[in-house]
Every structure is written in structure tokens, then in C-alpha cells.
């Protein structure tokens, strides 16, 4: 039935401007969406998912242009419509939910004013009606204090709640189509569940059609009726969700699956009398008057990986800051090979500083954009090992070879000329340059696509075997923990709630919180979310630990 088609995109081509050239981002994609249908768009970053989603609104970002094809929304071709006609549709009949609600809510206005903006300006309701309606939608999306929450400013509301408030805002004009652009990517697993549940309920209640964009197959499996896989601006495969999950036909789709099969090489357990490389003993720490760590103790042994997991705000990164001496603990000790370290990095010797290095989550911001790769890596070589001239250059070449990057090709480049995965490798080389015994990896794969992330994990694993490094691996992603950890430390509210070897941690019985974390990781089964929600409702458990 052609009447049933809400959105019909044919041969859509979008170019992006690089220097003086227009390079294709979307290379001719067809897309059909029926009323009330949820379509999943998946692919790695750079696949053109967001560009495609925005194009469905007749919108392209600055520096891009639609160079071909047609985008028919409810019979109206958006590529031929005037800007005024497109504006009349946006917000009213097609709405958008952005990846980071924290960045996409205007910090200067209250939530409810931003909610009512579209209905009032599009003439759907007046301000008073819109406010009543907002409260109703906030309630349906299970926001805490629905009568009051709208009168807060965005910074006064937590990330998961903001994401639901944004979904409510998108629904304010009861649109026919909503574009969800990675709405849960920035959230913790436990928070993700309630947002997913809220979105799914809202979409089915109002019979809204949706395009759900994500790089996470397991998430899209819960949300979408049909899935399209994109790669480099082209359609790889399209099928019903169940067909796609059970019988993907393309190699690329299968490779997206394969990522989770990586397992780090097995290591022998440390002997009972072995001295740990790093040992935290009852560490307390606070930011100003606010205590953030309470009696944290764990050991990290030579050649082993300890994964520290927990939601944001659980104190994972703070523990790392204590080890590096950036945040001196208020009490407790940090031992390095059995000897206590001075609490502040200012009082540590150069050798003590050299022993513990860090790799950061955002390789983009952790590398100086104005320095060449050889200088970024050469600096710690010079500073810690005292090498200069030819010896320094030799060492830099060795390090680049070690991270599988050709020194002659990459040495003279700037970070801006590298891909995300390559930048993260440079971050690893910089940490290795100090010749440390111990490396803190702070969410090093969170900002990367799954295939690239797997490459980084393999590299870290190989380096550990070759160099006998000890890793403290901070992450909120339990799939990564499964892949790389030897031991696991689970943290919540600044306390260690459970710790032990990985095998024990992944087999029941668990601490309640560990259980919540583990069960919140989405699985590929399309019925997973439904079953989990049923189960949790039956047992009367909360969806997450987030409090208002």
C-alpha cells in the first residue's frame, strides 16, 4: 500500500565540503518508512547514519549539501520545498532527539519552556496547554516529579532524565516521525534501560514512526522493526530485525557481530606471596568538602588486568587520580611494589612518576594538536629516560613499530591527520615511552567503533604479554570487561561493592548491584528488553539506581 508510506527517500546523495572539494558522504540510498514503523539505522562512525537521519528532515549540517535524489515526506518532496515549508514540518511533524541531551538542551532556558516552544510557535497549543501537556508526557515517560521537573534548568537534571525529557519534547506536537540519533550512547547501561523502555512505550502509544540511529546492534534489536546497515554512505543490508539478527547475509554485518568474541590470552594467577605492583589500602578521597571515595582497597599484579567497573559518578576515575597523585587521598595508602608512594605527584620522584602512566578516553583532546607524532612520543622519552638526538629518534621508531604504525609514514604527522583508532594508538605509545610497569586505561575504547576498539584491545593484550605490564582498566562496558579483564572490581557510590577473578564475577551469585549491572547489558535477542522489564516488574526491582 503506497498510502501507508510516510517517508520515501530515493537515491539520496549528500556531499560534504573538504577544502575546496565536495566529497560524497551518502552515495545514493533508498529508504522507505511506513507509518508507525521503527527503522533502525546502524553502522560505524562515518557511515553516514546521522546525515541520513537529518536528511529525513530535509536538513543538512553546515558544509554539506544534498546533491541528488528525492526525500518525500507524506507526499511532499523536501528537496524541492522552500525553507519556510521545511521549517513548518520540523518540530511539528518530524522531530529530532539528539545524542547528548545535556548539550542539546539550551542551558539558558527551563525544560518546560523548551518543551512548549515548538507547540506554541507551530500554533498547535497555547503556552498554558503546552505546560499541562508537558507534565502529562513527563509522567508517561516516568520522569520523577513530573509536575515540577519541567521548571528546572538542564544542568539541574541528570543525563538519563534529560534524555527522556528530550524525547518528551520531541513528542510535544505529536509528530508523525521522530529521528532518534544515538539517544542512549552517552548513558550508563542501567540508565540506558529506562530510557529505552520510555522511548519504546512512547513511540508505541502514539503510533509514531521512528528512525532509530545507533552503532549498538543489541540496542537496535530492542527498538526496531526493521534494520538497515550502512557503511561509508552506502546500504550494506536491509531486513526485518529478526531476520537480520539470525541470518545476516553480508560479511560486513557478520563482522559487526564478531567483535564480541575477542578474549584476551589467559594468564596464570599470581602466587600467594607475590607483591602487587599497585596496591590501594583503605583509600578515602574527596573533592573539596564532598567525599567521593570511601575505604577503597584493591591490588593489581604484574602482567594482569584489573577492570574497574561502575556507573558514572561511582569513583572509578577518582581512584585513578589518586594512584597518579593528581588527587592526594585524604587517608589510606597507595603502595607501589610494596613501598608507599607520596600522596601528591608533586612529592614523587621522576622514577616514581615514570612507573605509572595513563591512557585517556578522548584521544582527540589528550594529544596536543600542534605537535607532530614524533614529538608527542619523543617528549616522555626525553623527559623520563634522558635520551636525546639519534637515541631518542630510534626509541620513537621502536615505539611506533610496537603499536603497529609505520614510523616513516606517521612520525611527521599531526594528530588531526589520524583516525580515532590511530590517535588512541599514539596515546598508548606515549604511555609506553616512559617504560612503565603499570598503565591506567581510562575508558580507552569508549569513544571508538567496535571494530577499532577490538584492535586496541588486541594491541593492549599483546603488549601486556610482551612487556609484562599491569593494567588498571576503567570502563562501564561489561563486554570489554569480559574480553580483557583478569580481575574485576565493581564500584558504586565511591565504594568497592564486589571484587574477584573475572570468572567468579560473571557467575552467580552476585552482589545485587553487580547483578543489576550485568543484567542491564543489552543482548542481541529482540525480546530481551521486554523480558527483562517483565522480570524486573515481577520482582519489584527498580529499573536503575538513578535517583532524582
Amino acid at each position, binding site marked *: 500500500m503506497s498510502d501507508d508510506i510516510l517517508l520515501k527517500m530515493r537515491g539520496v546523495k549528500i556531499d560534504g565540503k573538504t577544502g575546496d572539494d565536495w566529497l560524497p558522504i551518502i552515495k545514493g540510498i533508498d529508504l522507505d518508512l511506513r507509518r508507525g514503523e521503527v527503522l533502525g539505522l546502524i553502522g560505524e562512525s562515518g557511515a553516514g547514519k546521522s546525515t541520513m537521519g537529518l536528511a529525513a528532515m530535509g536538513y543538512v549540517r553546515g558544509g554539506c549539501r544534498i546533491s541528488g535524489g528525492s526525500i518525500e515526506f507524506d507526499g511532499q518532496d523536501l528537496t524541492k520545498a522552500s525553507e519556510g515549508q521545511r521549517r513548518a514540518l520540523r518540530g511539528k511533524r518530524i522531530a529530532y532527539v539528539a545524542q547528548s541531551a545535556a548539550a542539546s538542551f539550551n542551558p539558558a532556558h527551563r525544560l518546560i519552556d523548551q518543551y512548549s*516552544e515548538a507547540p506554541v510557535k507551530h500554533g498547535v497549543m497555547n503556552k498554558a496547554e503546552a505546560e499541562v501537556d508537558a507534565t502529562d508526557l513527563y509522567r508517561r515517560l516516568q520522569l520523577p516529579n513530573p509536575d515540577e521537573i519541567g521548571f528546572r534548568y538542564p544542568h539541574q537534571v541528570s543525563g538519563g532524565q534529560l534524555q527522556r525529557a528530550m524525547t518528551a519534547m520531541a513528542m510535544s506536537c505529536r509528530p508523525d516521525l521522530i529521528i532518534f540519533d544515538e539517544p542512549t550512547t552517552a548513558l550508563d547501561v542501567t540508565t540506558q534501560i529506562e530510557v529505552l523502555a520510555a522511548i519504546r512505550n512512547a513511540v508505541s502509544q502514539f503510533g509514531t514512526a521512528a528512525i532509530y540511529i545507533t552503532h549498538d546492534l543489541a540496542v537496535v534489536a530492542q527498538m526496531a522493526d526493521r534494520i538497515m546497515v550502512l557503511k561509508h554512505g552506502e546500504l550494506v543490508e536491509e531486513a526485518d530485525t529478526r531476520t537480520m539478527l539470525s541470518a545476516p547475509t553480508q560479511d560486513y554485518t557478520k563482522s559487526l557481530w564478531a567483535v564480541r568474541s575477542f578474549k584476551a590470552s589467559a594468564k596464570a594467577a599470581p602466587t600467594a606471596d607475590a607483591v602487587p605492583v599497585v596496591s590501594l589500602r583503605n583509600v578515602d578521597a574527596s573533592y573539596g568538602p564532598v567525599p567521593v571515595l570511601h575505604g577503597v582497597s584493591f591490588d593489581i599484579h604484574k602482567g594482569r588486568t584489573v577492570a574497574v567497573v561502575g556507573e558514572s559518578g561511582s569513583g572509578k576515575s577518582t581512584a585513578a587520580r589518586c594512584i597518579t597523585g593528581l588527587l592526594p587521598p585524604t587517608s589510606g595508602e597507595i603502595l607501589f611494589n610494596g613501598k608507599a608512594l607520596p600522596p601528591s605527584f608533586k612529592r614523587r620522584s621522576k622514577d616514581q612518576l615514570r612507573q605509572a602512566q595513563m591512557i585517556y578516553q578522548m584521544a582527540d583532546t589528550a594529544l596536543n594538536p600542534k605537535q607532530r607524532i614524533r614529538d608527542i612520543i619523543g617528549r616522555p622519552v626525553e623527559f623520563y629516560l634522558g635520551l636525546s638526538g639519534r637515541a631518542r629518534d630510534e626509541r620513537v621508531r621502536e615505539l611506533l613499530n610496537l603499536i603497529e604504525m609505520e614510523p616513516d609514514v606517521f612520525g611527521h604527522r599531526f594528530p588531526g591527520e589520524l583516525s580515532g583508532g590511530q590517535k588512541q594508538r599514539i596515546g598508548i605509545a606515549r604511555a609506553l615511552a616512559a617504560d612503565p610497569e603499570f598503565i591506567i586505561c581510562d575508558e580507552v575504547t569508549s569513544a571508538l567503533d567496535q571494530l577499532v576498539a577490538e584492535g586496541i584491545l588486541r594491541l593492549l593484550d599483546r603488549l601486556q604479554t610482551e612487556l609484562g605490564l599491569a593494567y588498571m582498566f576503567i570502563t562501564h562496558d561489561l563486554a570489554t570487561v569480559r574480553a580483557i579483564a583478569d580481575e574485576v572490581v565493581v564500584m558504586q557510590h565511591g565504594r568497592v561493592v564486589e571484587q574477584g577473578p573475572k570468572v567468579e564475577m560473571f557467575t552467580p551469585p552476585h552482589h545485587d548491584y553487580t547483578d543489576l549491572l550485568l543484567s542491564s547489558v543489552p543482548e542481541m535477542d529482540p525480546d530481551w528488553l521486554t523480558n527483562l522489564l517483565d522480570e524486573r516488574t515481577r520482582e519489584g526491582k527498580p529499573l536503575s539506581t538513578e535517583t532524582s
Partner: protein
Amino acid sequence: MHPIASMALKRLGLGLLTLLVVSIIIFSAVEMLPGDLAQEILGQAATPETVAAFRKELGLDKPPVERYFDWLGGAVQGDFGKSLASKRLISDLMATRLGNTLFLASFAAIIAVPVSIVLGLLAALYRNTWFDRMINVVTLSSISFPEFFVAYILILMLSVGYPFDLGWVLLITGIWLLAEGYGSVKASLKISKVPALPALFATIGVALIANFFLGWWSPQMQGIEAYPSISNIAPNTPFWERVDRSFLPALTLTLVVTAYMMRMTRAAIINLLASPYVEMARLKGMSPWRVIVTHALPNALAPIINVVAISLAFLVTGVVVVEVVFVYPGVGQLMVDSVTKRDVTVVQACCLIFAATYILLNLLADILAIATNPRLLHPK
């Protein structure tokens, strides 16, 4: 206490401290001037006894530190001592002059601030179009000219009336702009090629057309009383008379400060246009003007408030040249007169008042910039 109140008190304390340091610098600078003040005033013919007696009368025989504290103690109570030249109380002298200067500054500010912010918003809205470039060229050229030049051009156009060679003035102005401002204007507008010859012809064309129309528009041609080129204002001048007489200096100041505020507004707004919440507003179907005014502007207030405050401070303290050109009886002119008469006590007082204005306006800008941040106004 509310965080903003405590912050304001802290800033106020720091402002007073800065003012104290400035007062030391002013006093020391005047102290370091070469020559003996009493000798200067009495002239070469004075006997040593007269000079000594005069020094005693002025209090110059006391050690500098003591004199500094005397001066400071007086200044805190509003007593700046007596003018050396006229023997009048400086506070009396200052009261009317400061009033006049503040009147002129407020007059200019009332025109300049809204005009430049609206122009900045419009320039951001129509960025990189001819409209944007034109606003940039006009405002940039008005600050590229020296103030006195702007002042004389305005006198020529609005006060003296239509002279036969006004077209030539515009033509010379245009050529001057092309020669002097060419490089900076080109760089700031990122226009890679400004065809010089067509621009020259365009200027000549505009000059000739303007010449023609100004012929009708000229105050004298219409028999309208022109704006006075000398702003003689007395304390008993009625308000509208005052407005009329200080119109030309106010307009000069407006032309001089508009560019800074307009360009900062434009830059601050454009800076935010790439942010996700601005994109969100566009995706909600909001009109471009609404996106800029309700979504970008509230978040760009901090830098705009700062540049407005600095411009206001300039309007009070930077009026020296303009006041002299228009013979406007303000603090700036008082200062220039006092410098020529070596009336150091008055110069000191003027400096201190200018410094206090600067510090006060910056303080106000800091507080307002923080107070417009909802994160601080509505803590968690």
C-alpha cells in the same frame, strides 16, 4: 549567603584594592614630575622666601607619604583639595563637570548600545552576505578614523551645512578608506579579492549621488537650524536644549564605539551557532531570527556585557579629544586645561575618577556576566 552575593562582595573588595593601587601610582607619577611646583607657579622672579612660604601654604613641605595619606583621606570623603590655579574646591569644580561628562556618555550609550547589539545580531543572522560586509565596512571605517576627524566631518555635514565640496570630502574619505583600511578590512572580512578599481568607481559614484541628495537634505538648504558645533552647556541649560547641543559629540562617540560592540556581538553569536542546542532549535522549526535571539543570545551575554562595559568606560574616560573639539565642559576638558595650567591636584583628581569609573564598570560587567549564567543563578 547566595553565591552571587558573596561573589559580588569579593569582587567589590578586589575593586577597592585595585583603586588603592591606582591611587598610589597616580600620586607617585605626579610626584615624579620634574621641577618644583611652587617655583613653576610663581615663576623665575620669585624670591626663595616667597617660594618657601608658598610651598608651606600648599603643604608641599611635608614628606610625600604623609601628603599621600592626607590626599587619600580627603579623597575618600569626597574632598580632593583645592585647585592650584583657581583656588576653588576641586569637588565643586568636578561636580558639574562630571555631571556633564556622564550626561554625554549616557547619551552616547543610549544610542550606541542598542544599535550595535541589533546590528551585531543582524550581521550574525545574515553572516557572509553583502549586508554583513557592509555593516562591517561602515563600522570598521568609523573606528579607523581618528575621533577628531569623525567629529569634524560631522560638523561639516550637520552643523556648517552643505558646502560645495562635501562630495569631495566623501570621495577623499573613500580613497582614504581604500588606502588605509584596505588591508585590515580585507583581512577581517576574509574577502580574498576586493577589486580595487570598481570599488574606487563605486566610491566616486556614491560621493556624487550623496552630493546631489545632501544638497536637499542640508540643514541650511531646508532652513532648519543646524546642530551646534560648540556644545556650550551651563548648569541651568534646559534638558532638551542640552540634548540638542550635545548631539554632535554624542554621535561622534557613538560612531567610535559601535564597531567594538557590534563585532563582539556578531562573533559571540556566530561562535554558538555550531552548538548542538542551536541545531536543536533549528530542528524544532524555529525561524533564524528566533534561533539567534532566544537561543544564542542568552548564552552569549557574558562576552557582550564585557565589551559593553569596556565601551561605556571608554565613553566616560575617552572623551578628552571629543570634548576638546566640541568645547564641551566635561571632565576630559577640565583635565586638558589643568595639564596646560600645571594644576596637578586637579589632574590627580581627574585620573582617580577615571580609574574609579573603569574599575566600577568592569566590576559591574563581571557581576552581570556571572549573574546571567543560570548554572550560578540556579544552583543544583
